[in-house]
């Protein structure tokens, strides 16, 4: 069958809300778009372990420490679910790693910001995971089967992440004056970068056109950002913190909060590698991968030896 006819059938299938599975015919551009998006998502989960790992040894109590460890372990798991989904598109894990290391593949810019103190761990869980959940809930309906199924698993696990972050923020906001100031300071620093996680305005979003047509993306950047703002503003009120945006105001007519303009210059600076921690994050990932080489070698050698033993016996 010629490609034009195949593409028509493909679109009809999507319009009937049927999922696309790995072995189904798909346009090359659909495959490429998904590899780019799913790998970026996977890399974000894995790189996202670093700013939080930074605080494991300094968690203020044993409870906080086991919780943080479990959360970071989940992030590794989420990265692996997504790599597994991405590999069904015909790209190897080696290639995915290489694309991350050469900078060809990106990860979410938010993880290039540092976590300066314990309140930042609270803010990351509450805001960064909170923003990720809004995005991921929407992606549960994405058109590629393995990606959608991965999202369902991830969403089930994420709400623990957001709640642990919000609990930390609540504890600090209701603590001493100094603790409250730390919580407010963390919110001040991480609020805008969290809003940037949803990407450029719809009008300036270069990858959206086909993604909407192909039902990879089910809601627009601006729609998702608005959802996140609407629910987070009220959560801030509950714990007595204020959102660092003088233009933030409830709009009765729209039924949503209006908010100020995002500093897009900062967004593109960080995407293009000039954020506070871009170099450090990648260097750490490369080092961890290289230092794991002997483990992979030993595991392979052991497996080979076991096979030989079995064949001889």
């Amino acid at each position, binding site marked *: 069958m010629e490609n034009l006819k195949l593409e028509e059938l493909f679109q009809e299938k999507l319009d009937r809300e049927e999922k696309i599975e790995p072995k189904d015919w798909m346009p090359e551009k659909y495959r490429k778009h998904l590899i780019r998006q799913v790998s970026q998502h996977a890399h974000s989960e894995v790189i996202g372990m670093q700013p939080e790992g930074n605080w494991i040894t300094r968690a203020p109590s044993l409870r906080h420490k086991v919780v943080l460890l479990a959360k970071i372990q989940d992030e590794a798991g989420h990265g692996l679910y997504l790599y597994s989904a991405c590999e069904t598109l015909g790209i190897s894990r*080696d290639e995915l790693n290489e694309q991350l290391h050469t900078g060809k593949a990106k990860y979410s810019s938010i993880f290039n910001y540092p976590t300066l103190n314990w309140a930042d761990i609270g803010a990351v869980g509450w805001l960064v995971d909170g923003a990720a959940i809004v995005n991921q809930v929407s992606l549960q309906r994405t058109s590629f089967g393995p990606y959608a199924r991965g999202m369902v698993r991830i969403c089930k696990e994420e709400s623990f992440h957001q709640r642990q972050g919000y609990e930390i923020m609540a504890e600090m906001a209701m603590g001493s004056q100094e603790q409250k100031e730390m919580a407010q300071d963390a919110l001040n620093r991480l609020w805008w970068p969290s809003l940037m996680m949803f990407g450029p305005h719809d009008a300036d979003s270069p990858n959206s056109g086909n993604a909407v047509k192909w039902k990879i993306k089910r809601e627009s950047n601006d729609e998702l950002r608005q959802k996140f703002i609407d629910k987070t503003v009220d959560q801030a009120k509950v714990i007595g913190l204020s959102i660092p945006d003088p233009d933030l105001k409830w709009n009765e007519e729209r039924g949503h909060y209006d908010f100020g303009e995002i500093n897009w210059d900062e967004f593109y600076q960080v995407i293009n590698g000039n954020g506070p921690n871009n170099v450090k994050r990648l260097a750490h990932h490369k080092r961890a991968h290289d230092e794991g080489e002997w483990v992979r070698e030993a595991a392979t050698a052991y497996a080979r030896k076991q096979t030989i033993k079995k064949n001889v016996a």
Partner: protein
Amino acid sequence: MSDNQLPLWEVFIQSKTGLPYKHVGSVHAADAEMALQNARDLYTRRNEGRSIWVVPSDAIVASVPEDEDSFFDPSDDKIYRHPTFYEMPKGAKHI
């Protein structure tokens, strides 16, 4: 670039006795034992399963999506395989 990623295994989980095994995703591992342990760590962190199968991905044989229509065609016209095909006399119960 050398192949660094270890072989691929597909993972199937049974969540409770009596239920079927369900495909959940894949893991990379050097051997079967490592594949089982990796699958446990990755896919059952919250008691999602009580039994796991791991199968080398290249051992799975699958039907081809493009052949879907012709491959499943033999069952398309045999409506008499369904109970609704049969006319029951009025008043017949429990059948």
